[in-house]
């Protein structure tokens, strides 16, 4: 019977549900600390078992796609930081790459190398954060502290580079805004030297731990068909038996020049995902070592360009702006009116730490994008919860949400 809620007869959801088929409805979130921000899960329970799950999103909705339609392209960059705020440069990068594709811009090599380093640092940051929070959700406090300690080093490196710890805005359309700071490479090498031991510590603590295994093994099984039909990407897809990584399939940046291998597994459960995250950290460290070498080679070869040279779209370097009249005029036009990419549309996928992050831009030749669509991996990984959770028990919900690695800035956008 439909209830008409009013002040005298409030709406008691649970009463009506209980009358119908004896299910208890529990709201998991939006304030639950292990619900990763603003996830509200409506769980229908039969005793402790979930029979129906309905993720309710939108608590962090800021309307980014609409905001983009009212901003010049450069202005949108800091907004993308606020999507996946755990690895914000990867969002910056996806947007920059999409606009560069749209206007057909070639980025100087030195900028590319710096971008690669930033991207992989962000991947490490995100994976460490994932490990910390998931372990904390499951009850392993020590891992949380250790992983956050390591993440702090990386944040310090990023802070030294761009001046912010979380919302970097460290990549520009057409290149990077700054060269790396003088002690960047040294700090990075120190960190990378310590990382293998750290990862080994985490694995010592977790791999054989029987509580961890019980919470992970066989929990949250996603079959290959299910992963594909729900649009899973990234580690979620690779854990379910599909070896697919955009860095390998459609290499962007310099990913075709570095040597690394991507782990995959067909177990499909939480444990496989955990292992994939750990292995990816090792691979990221490998990529970073190679990037350091590439950067040093760039320095030796005397490549100093950090921004592409395209006066129609990109402002000249600061010194030119301050010394040359034409550059200054160009700069004023580009800031006050914005660049005008040619008419066209692009969709550019990149492999963010969480999966396929895609930007679709439809340009009508004006200074604002006509339409900008963001394809954020976490959104799809939230959707799969509807299908994944039924049959599991309440404690498993926490560990499954943990391993899906959803970040709500990205889901709600």
């Amino acid at each position: 019977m439909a209830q008409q809620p009013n002040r005298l007869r409030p709406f008691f959801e649970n009463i009506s549900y209980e009358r119908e088929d004896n299910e208890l409805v529990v709201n998991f979130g939006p304030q639950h600390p292990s619900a990763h921000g603003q996830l509200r899960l409506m769980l229908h329970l039969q005793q402790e078992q979930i029979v129906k799950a309905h993720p309710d999103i939108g608590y962090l909705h800021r309307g980014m796609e609409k905001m983009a339609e009212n901003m010049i392209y450069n202005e949108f960059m800091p907004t993308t930081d606020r999507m996946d705020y755990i690895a914000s440069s990867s969002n910056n990068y996806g947007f920059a790459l999409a606009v560069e594709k749209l206007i057909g811009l070639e980025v100087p090599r030195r900028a590319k190398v710096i971008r690669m380093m930033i991207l992989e640092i962000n991947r490490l940051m995100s994976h460490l954060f994932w490990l910390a929070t998931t372990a904390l959700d499951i009850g392993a406090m020590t891992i949380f502290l250790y992983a956050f300690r390591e993440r702090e080093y990386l944040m310090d490196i990023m802070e030294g580079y761009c001046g912010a710890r979380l919302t970097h805005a460290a990549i520009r359309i057409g290149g990077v805004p700054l060269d790396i700071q003088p002690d960047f490479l040294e700090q990075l090498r120190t960190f990378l030297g310590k990382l293998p031991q750290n990862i080994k510590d985490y694995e010592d603590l977790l791999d054989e731990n029987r509580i961890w295994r019980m919470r992970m093994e066989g929990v949250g099984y996603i079959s290959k068909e299910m992963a594909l039909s729900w649009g899973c990407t990234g580690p979620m897809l690779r854990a379910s038996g599909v070896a697919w990584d955009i860095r390998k399939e459609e290499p962007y940046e310099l990913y075709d020049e570095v040597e690394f291998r991507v782990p995959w597994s067909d177990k499909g459960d939480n444990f496989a995902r955990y292992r994939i995250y750990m292995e990816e950290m090792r691979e990221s460290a490998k990529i970073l070592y190679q990037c350091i070498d590439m950067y040093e080679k760039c320095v030796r070869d005397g490549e100093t360009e950090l921004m592409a040279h395209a006066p129609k779209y990109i402002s000249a370097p600061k010194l030119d702006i301050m010394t040359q009249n034409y550059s200054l005029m160009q700069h004023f036009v580009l800031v006050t009116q914005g660049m005008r990419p040619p008419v066209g549309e692009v969709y550019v996928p990149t492999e963010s730490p969480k999966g396929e992050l895609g930007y679709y831009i439809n340009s009508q030749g004006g200074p604002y994008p006509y339409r900008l669509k963001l394809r954020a991996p976490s959104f799809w990984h939230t959707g799969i919860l509807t299908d994944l959770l039924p049959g599991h028990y309440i404690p498993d919900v926490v560990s499954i949400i943990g391993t899906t690695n959803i970040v709500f800035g990205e889901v709600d956008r």
Partner: protein
Amino acid sequence: MSKQEMFKDRNISEDYFFLDIEDYPTTPWEKFKRVVKRSLKGELFVGLWVVLREMIKFDIHTVQYPEEKLPIGPRYRAVHEMKRLWESGTERCIGCGLCEKICISKCIRIETRYDENQRKEVGEYSINLGRCIYCGYCAEVCPELAITHGGEYENASEQREHFILYEDMLTPIDDVLNKKQREFQGFGAITPHEDERLKKTPLAY
């Protein structure tokens, strides 16, 4: 299933590697065996040892915040500063309004007017620090290196709106004359050694 064809029969041996995860025990007997094996290996003690080792290293990373403060890097983006020219000590800002235009959160407000010599002069200049997202774009677009970020990050306030005025941000004139003004190295700064690249304007036409 045609969409899934692309995932079949691909040669992935070079780019990917298969994670070797042993099969989970299914029968009660196997489970029992694993429990015994694990217990003999002392898996809990491994964890304890890792933690103990970290503990006796006394490699402590905690910073006792209000007493101890971590140094702030030269590129850190915190509360803005307005710089002065080195030689004359006059204000660099010319009131062009680029920072107001680019500001993503629209928190800069400038009013300009004529001064007594009929030159443009900045009248009112305020930044609402409660809205500012410290993106660094104002510093990046400023053609005069006037607005930059500073290192002052402790700006707790009782209200959300917290306006900072031009005079508060401006470097004190004494600091410039004593050469104590610091150039900002972050977004919008001139790349070091950039002037070596610069060519003189050809005079002979």
